[in-house]
């Protein structure tokens, strides 16, 4: 059948299983939105406050479901507003397809109104970016974008569509959804070596990252640690792959990880790394990381193997396939001595006291965990509240803790929460945790939450300062608080009302529990503004480039 480019766009999205996209209209995408309108809901759109929010929403949609998120923006500023969202998704390997309009082909490169060379701008922050130059190539380019986004190490793809393509006509033949490329099968010999390293080990440790969640390998990881009695530590991105209360889960490692988790890495004689990349927030000093251990590394991206820390055994491939093949090769073993050491180190972990007269971050998060239910999905912004959320929330399942780990994007949260809530449906509880600093970067998306009636509960850790940077200034800059004490007079309760949603302020744990309980009964978005002290710090902390001997616990 003969269709216009705009119709082909919609037909191909529908064919690829896209039901929802996030976007913002503009001159060069008028025809695309018109074709969506014409499709009468086959592919629905969600209008956000800006394109940045749309990109984060598509990201939250993808992180919470594993499906590819889709965002549509106009040319020029619409396209450049996507860049932070693309970079965020790229760093955390989130499958995303971004569509941008552009000026017509004959005008490309001539500085037309709202022209930007987004294909080039997006190059270093996407897996792939492409400008479609013939309407005949449009459908296959879109299909390829979805295949690339979901293949191997997942990531964002940008497809730029010049405006004249959207009215050009050509023959369209529907196809079945693009299947992801089959990942290479993990090498049997490498797996046998990996099993030997772990079976011979007296002090084995699993170090797992977001790749486990991306590969859908969390159930296999749970089987593996249970079968072979393997204690495990995780990265920020992998919270929930093992339950927080799994006795084998030692918690998060790295800069703000537990003392016991970092000590375990230090003392382990074998380290099985699955879907993690030894980042500078984990391997703070890569040359000394896991220095007593033989390192086995499983990663779908071969360029990650040995990148920061040398691997003794490398297993390129899909984490689920590798763990499945490794499982029968591992022998159950008695780890009593090793577990006793680990329990002794856990007894030395950082502990906080409970107070009833003022609000403390850990208490807020523990209260949320006990009230929100096990299937609640948590979304964070970036800063102290993010680290506290990683440390103190009760993570029970994969894809229930959505956070910008690699890029560390303040202003990620509200858009991502909107995406997650729309993906999972109104019946799922979505809680957005943010700080007053981060929230000032994206609270404009409140209008979207109101428009769509999304019952997102936003908890603002309001210490009146840019807490994480201030913490560094306290510890490493002799209390010189440059640009972290903004003296803002924002009244979040009034701002909430101005947006047409409810906002409450809390100053004690009792007030917070009441407010959160009330929020759970609400049908629309709610903000809870929590007053916390400006000197609250995230501990423990190992300074960048430091080792366990540098850990700050008080």
């Amino acid at each position, binding site marked *: 059948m003969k269709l216009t480019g705009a119709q082909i766009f919609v037909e191909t999205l529908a064919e690829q299983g896209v039901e929802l996209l996030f976007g913002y209209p503009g001159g060069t995408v008028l025809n695309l939105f018109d074709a969506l309108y014409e499709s009468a809901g086959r592919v629905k759109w969600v209008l956000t406050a800006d394109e940045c929010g749309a990109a984060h929403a598509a990201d939250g949609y993808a992180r919470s479901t594993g499906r590819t998120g889709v965002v549509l923006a106009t040319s020029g500023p619409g396209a450049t507003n996507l860049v932070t969202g693309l970079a965020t998704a790229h760093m955390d390997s989130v499958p995303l397809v971004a569509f941008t309009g552009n000026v017509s082909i004959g005008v490309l490169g001539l500085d037309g109104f709202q022209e930007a060379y987004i294909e080039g701008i997006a*190059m*270093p922050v996407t*897996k792939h970016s*492409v400008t479609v130059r013939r309407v005949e190539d449009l459908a296959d380019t879109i299909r390829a974008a979805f295949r690339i986004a979901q293949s191997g*190490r997942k990531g964002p793809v940008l497809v730029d569509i010049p405006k004249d393509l959207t009215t050009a006509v050509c023959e369209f033949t529907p196809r079945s959804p693009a299947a992801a490329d089959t990942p290479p099968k993990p090498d049997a010999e490498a797996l046998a070596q990996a099993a030997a390293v772990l079976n011979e080990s007296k002090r084995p440790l699993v170090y797992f990252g977001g790749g486990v969640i991306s590969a859908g390998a969390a159930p296999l990881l749970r089987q593996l640690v249970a079968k072979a009695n393997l204690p495990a530590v995780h990265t920020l991105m992998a919270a929930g792959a093992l339950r927080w209360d799994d006795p084998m889960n030692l918690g998060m490692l790295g800069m703000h990880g537990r003392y016991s988790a970092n000590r375990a890495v230090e003392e382990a004689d074998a380290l099985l790394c699955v879907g993690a990349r030894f980042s500078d927030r984990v391997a703070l000093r890569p040359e000394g990381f896991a220095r007593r251990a033989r390192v086995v590394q499983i990663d779908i*991206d*071969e*360029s990650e193997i040995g*990148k920061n820390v040398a691997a003794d055994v490398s297993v390129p491939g899909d984490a689920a396939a590798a763990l499945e093949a490794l499982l029968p090769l591992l022998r159950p073993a008695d780890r009593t001595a090793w577990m006793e050491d680990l329990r002794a180190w856990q007894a030395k972990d950082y502990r906080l006291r409970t107070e009833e007269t003022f609000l403390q971050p850990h208490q807020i998060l523990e209260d949320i965990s006990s009230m929100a239910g096990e299937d609640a999905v948590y979304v964070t912004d970036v800063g102290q509240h993010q680290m506290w959320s990683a440390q103190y929330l009760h993570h029970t399942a994969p894809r229930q803790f959505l956070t910008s780990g690699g890029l560390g994007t303040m202003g990620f949260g509200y858009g991502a929460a909107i995406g997650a809530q729309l993906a999972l449906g109104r019946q799922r509880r979505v809680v957005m945790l943010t700080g007053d600093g981060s929230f000032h970067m994206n609270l404009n998306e409140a209008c979207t939450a109101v428009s769509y009636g999304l019952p997102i509960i936003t908890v603002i850790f309001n210490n009146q300062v840019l807490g994480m940077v201030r913490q560094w200034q306290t510890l490493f800059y002799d209390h010189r608080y440059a640009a972290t004490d903004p003296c803002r007079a924002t009244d979040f309760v009034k701002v909430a009302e101005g947006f047409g949603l409810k906002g409450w302020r809390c100053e004690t744990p009792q007030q917070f529990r009441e407010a959160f309980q009330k929020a759970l009964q609400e049908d629309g978005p709610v903000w809870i503004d929590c007053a916390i002290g400006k000197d609250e710090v995230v501990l423990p902390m190992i300074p960048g480039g430091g080792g366990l001997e540098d850990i700050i616990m008080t």
Partner: protein
Amino acid sequence: MKQTNVVTMLTENPNGVLGRIIALFGRHGVAIDSLSVSATAEQGISRITVTTLCGRPLTQLALQARRLVDIRQVTLLEGGARREVLEVKLCRCDDGLFDLARRYGAAVLTADDGCPVLECAHTPAALDALLAELEPWQVAELSRTVVAAPALHPAASWG
């Protein structure tokens, strides 16, 4: 003399991928010494050859290049056959120049203005030596191509 690293890549879309390759090397702080795009025996497939004098191991960079959607194979080369073509216009001509050309297997051509042009395909080191010997004939113009390095001696390859 610093070690030259050679990375060769096969692609169906040299226009699309060239900027990405340059950005990748730039991000790693690896200065590109020469870069060429050339035909291969296979129709529609181009070879991109990058040489650097950085002296660092390039395995990780090569693996990242392999991740680029339009790259189908990446090979790191060491040693082996590496040739360049040198074209050099000289200010005067005599029998000595023909002797020198014979020793290097070079041809002596004549430019439109009547000046001699020496043309030689050889290893980079031999061309350096030839240039040094050409000094008495006074070099007027010089053009030297980048390295042509067929993957005869791959150190590592990812396809």
